[in-house]
């Protein structure tokens, strides 16, 4: 069979599979798949064996194509989403620092949360946003939300609606304008932060829903950063934590913790070490650790299984790559 025919058949199979599953979904026949413990174990062993076979083949001189790597990554991320296995979580110091900072605040303290990311980074940051907001409300803190990215405030609204589905949260009777305010997006990157240093209202004359700043009891008396007790920045790039630290922390002495994508996190450690940041949640594991501290099972905890799996597969391929390297090195010597 020609390659072309194989490709077409693959596409056809995927298409048919999707249509069938989709029909099952909309007719309500299928409400989701969850592998039992046995099936999960079998899948894990199968992937492990397949990796072993690749390792042996590599040692015999058959190098794998990068597309094989791609395929393994796809499976190792997709399949665990359908499994139900719990993992042990160890909390790192920087995550605990954020948690403690929140716990140490007096009820009624004002917390500023800046949502500086868009839907593309939501898988990592949304779980953090949800668990952080949740913890704030559990501790009766007042939350002021804003965004330096246009889609940030929208993500905040999404997070709010998710956590408000929870009965415990409903019981808190969170009132807009009193317990929580969404100031919306303001263009201008770090300059927004800088102007907020002297006057919030000059940057946010109206909130996300169009209400005037002075009509919101929570922020009416919030002039600038000196009225904020702790702040948390969910950041996926520029503008983000770096700009907040350089302007709000360095110039205005704001107390700030960071929730960063794992890519950004390494750079933030320098700020953490220099004391410019008070606590840091890095990537999905940071989110999962925070959820654990806050005693709440959210998406980060759920996604962590796929995460662990994918890491193991990457590690396995690094080993395979090195096996290939040592083999070729030995051949040259002979």
């Amino acid at each position, binding site marked *: 069979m020609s390659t072309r025919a194989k490709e077409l058949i693959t596409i056809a199979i995927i298409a048919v599979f999707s249509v069938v599953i989709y029909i099952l979904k909309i007719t309500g026949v299928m409400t989701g798949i969850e592998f039992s413990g046995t099936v999960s174990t079998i899948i894990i062993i199968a992937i492990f064996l397949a990796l072993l076979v690749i390792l042996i083949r590599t040692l015999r001189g058959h190098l794998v194509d990068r597309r094989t790597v791609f395929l393994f990554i796809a499976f190792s*991320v997709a399949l665990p989403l359908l499994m139900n296995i719990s993992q042990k979580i160890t909390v790192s110091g920087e995550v605990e620092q954020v948690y403690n900072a929140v716990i140490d605040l007096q009820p009624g303290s004002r917390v500023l949360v800046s949502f500086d990311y868009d839907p593309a980074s939501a898988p990592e940051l949304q779980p953090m946003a949800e668990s952080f907001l949740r913890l704030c409300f559990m501790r009766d803190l007042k939350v002021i939300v804003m965004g330096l990215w246009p889609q940030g405030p929208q993500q905040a609204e999404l997070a709010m609606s998710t956590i408000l589905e929870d009965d415990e949260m409903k019981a808190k009777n969170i009132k807009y304008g009193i317990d929580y305010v969404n100031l919306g997006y303001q263009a201008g990157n770090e300059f927004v932060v800088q102007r907020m240093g002297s006057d919030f209202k000059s940057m946010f004359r109206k909130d996300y829903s169009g209400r005037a700043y002075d*009509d919101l009891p929570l922020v009416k008396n919030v002039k600038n950063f000196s009225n904020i007790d702790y702040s948390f920045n969910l950041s996926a790039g520029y503008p983000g934590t770096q700009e907040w630290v350089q302007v709000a922390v360095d110039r205005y002495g704001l107390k700030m913790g960071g929730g960063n994508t794992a890519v950004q996190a390494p750079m933030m450690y320098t700020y953490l070490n220099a004391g410019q940041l008070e606590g840091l949640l890095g*990537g*999905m594991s940071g989110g999962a650790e925070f959820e654990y501290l806050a005693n709440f099972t959210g998406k980060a905890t759920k996604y962590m299984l796929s995460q662990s799996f994918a890491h193991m597969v990457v590690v396995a391929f690094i080993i395979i790559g090195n096996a290939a390297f040592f083999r070729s090195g030995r051949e040259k010597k002979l």
Partner: protein
Amino acid sequence: MEHFALWLAAFLTLGIVSFLYKDNPWYKLCEAIFVGLSAGYWFVVLFWDNIYGKFWVGVFPLEEFDEAGREITAEPDYWLFVGAALGILMLMRLVPNIGWISRWPLAFIVGSTAGLYLINYFSSNMMRQVQGTIVPLFGAGYDASAYAIVGNIVVAVGTFAGLVYFFFSKEHRGVFGGTAKVGVFFLMLTFGASFGYTVMSRMSLLIGRMDFLLGDWLGMIK
């Protein structure tokens, strides 16, 4: 419409993913849509956010009232005309023979960027980082665990050696060269660690996408 939207999103998602296999018409189609659509997206967004929202509304503020009926209309900011003037000079490029005028706004932007970055990086990246490096390695009143002491020594030595590596005007030979070599080791450790950390981040994004395909689209996730 909802079904169509889901299928469209899935079609585009899989089209981009198909690039991993090889370049193909499906990817080419998605790529063309993406380039055109995103160019159009920013074209529109920059117009409404910056030219209208920032400039026009800044110069001619909209009348606004709060709930009590007090007028809260912002003061017009005429300084914004400078930005518009620079922008129009920039567009002079489209006019033959006076296109060179666009170099003035460019010179202005380059000059202010250079000035701003010079001072910002000097104060934040340099002063702050040097300050952070100068800490007692051990001593009274400080975290005196072996963890912290070894850590502080590592930070001081690593920063020192790393900086030595960046010396341009001295040949990397002898003790100096040895130190630079240690600097390279530190840089490699840094890159490795950052890379490892990033693997996590990137996997998370893929998990998010898989969650869309298997969850939102096909409804397979419980």
